[in-house]
């Protein structure tokens, strides 16, 4: 590998594992700081047994934010201690694997991976899992890599009670 080439695989894996850790620990501020101001955070909905929505402007998504502000609102809602969905907050364990990253521009990495999130709700003493695919686009800002775009394709889309950024 030439000195000019970035180690896309290593950069992406580090970012993905760090993101998973921050979510599981509830380090929301550090987590959201991984995203660009104009980052897209998108969980498409399933149209039928085979296809997901493709256009957030004309189709409904499960979650769609086209700026970090949307994620910050979700964090503020949880931290306000006014949303019953977070009283108590479910405990999560993210596992991210099958990471396949490639450099698509000098300062840009595209990455596919799969996830499973184990969600345990101390309110009900019940657990369930969420699983699917991540598609990350990372962009370099000086020495830092930030998430420019994250698409989460949720395999099990029949939502048990609540779905939020921390449980996928």
């Amino acid at each position, binding site marked *: 590998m030439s000195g000019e080439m970035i180690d896309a695989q290593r950069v992406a894996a580090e970012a993905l594992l760090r993101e998973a850790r921050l979510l599981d620990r509830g380090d929301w501020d550090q987590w959201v700081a991984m995203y660009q101001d104009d980052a897209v955070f998108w*969980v*498409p*909905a399933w*149209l*039928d*047994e085979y296809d997901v*929505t493709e256009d*957030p*402007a*004309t*189709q*409904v*998504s*499960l*979650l*769609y934010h086209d700026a970090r502000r949307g994620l910050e*609102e*979700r964090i*503020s*809602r949880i931290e*306000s201690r*006014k*949303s*019953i*969905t977070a009283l108590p907050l479910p405990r999560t364990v993210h596992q991210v694997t099958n990471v396949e990253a490639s450099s698509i521009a000098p300062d840009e990495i595209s990455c596919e991976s799969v996830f499973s999130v184990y969600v345990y709700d101390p*309110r*009900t003493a019940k657990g369930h899992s969420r699983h699917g695919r991540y598609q990350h686009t990372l962009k370099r800002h000086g020495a830092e890599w930030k998430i420019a775009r994250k698409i989460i394709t949720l395999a099990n*889309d*029949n*939502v*048990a*009670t*609540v*779905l*939020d950024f921390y449980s996928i």
Partner: protein
Amino acid sequence: MNAAALSRAERLSAISKLVDDRPDEQFFQVDRSIFTDQSVFEAELRYVFESTWNFIGLESQIARPNDFVTTHIGRQPILLMRSADGKIGAFLNTCRHRGTVVCPFKQGRQKFHVCRYHGWAYDSSGRNVSITEEGSGQYPASFTNANHDLVPVARLGSYRGFIFASLSPDVPPIEEFLGDVRVFLDLVVDQSDSGEVEFVPGASTYTFDGNWKLQFENGLDYYHFATTHSSYVDILRKRNATAAPDAGSTVEPKGEQEGQGSFSFDYGHAVNCRSKRAQLYGRPLGMDPARLDTVRQRVGSTRAKWMLRQRNLTIFPNLQVIDILSAQVRTWRPIAPDKTEMVSHCLAPVGESAAARTMRIRNYEDFFNASGLASSDDNVMYEFSQSGYAAAAAGPTQGYLRGAGDVGTGESFHTRELGVSPTEWSFGPTTFGGETNFHPGYREWRRLLQRAAEQATA
């Protein structure tokens, strides 16, 4: 009369009495067991859901020949489809041969539905077109002479593109069943110049571990909003403070009284409405002033005013249509006394601008999705209520009496404006949060169970 029939009649009659409704005494309560008891659950599935009209889909979901969607009436799987020659039909989604679900898909377009088990085939009008190896089957005459088509629902009807079906023939005509709640469906549909509504692609399904009546009540409950959704209200306030007024913001005409209230109708239906001068959110209809003018000229300023007011319709037993910052169609399917499956659709008038459509979608995701900022709080709250209902020793709850001290009957300013004749109405300040609008649903629930009890002894 045999003992079994008598005991069933007595049991159903006893269940119906779990709703204690004494309007003359301004008294209404329901027994907690209607949310928790397995025998109540089975009775209401059979004698409420499976014995009256249910909403099963929009005509625009099956706009073209051979389009289909699958759904349920109570426990029973339903296949709704448009035949090759354009006729709408609804059938029990079960093969006549061995009961297998004929169409296992959510939606699509197919001329034929072939049962995967033994290959019996049906066309999109429900007609059986093939019995595999019928000739070598050594069938008796009783089989050969029998009809093998998919079994249609007992009654099928539609109003302004909303399709309803009943598994029982013992129902009033759909127009009578809907009654004046049709005026409120008109207020949704007439936002489209062509008088058509559609579901925006991207429906979602979610469950909560609670009884379906928690959703039924919540959809008519303005009282919970300020507490349950306070974190969402905070977000809306912050958005309005930091950004320009929300796109699509509209104001009430001068001189209109702020407040909220409800209209109750026969067969279990009720509508909540709210007029408030300062809105926390805009409306898709307000996004495009030129289009709003066109709508106003078409429907008149009074109807246009009501189109811009929050309206929550409950069409008993399985449909709620909410028209606020977006529009939602939600239906529920009772799975168990303590489990309910919801299907939620974003509803839209055909022909709105691209900007209005995108705003409708973003607002819908924000508010209505189980992954959004408001319905998710409701879902968790239902589960807390369900666990609380286990405290049977605490007796009936006190959640049915806001407004019961001043129930309106006959005409009011609002009923005259809308041209509706509700059985009851209520109106109060913006903090009113009336609960008498739950009563019609429970009265219909009780009527259907009492009818079943009478039929059991007949």
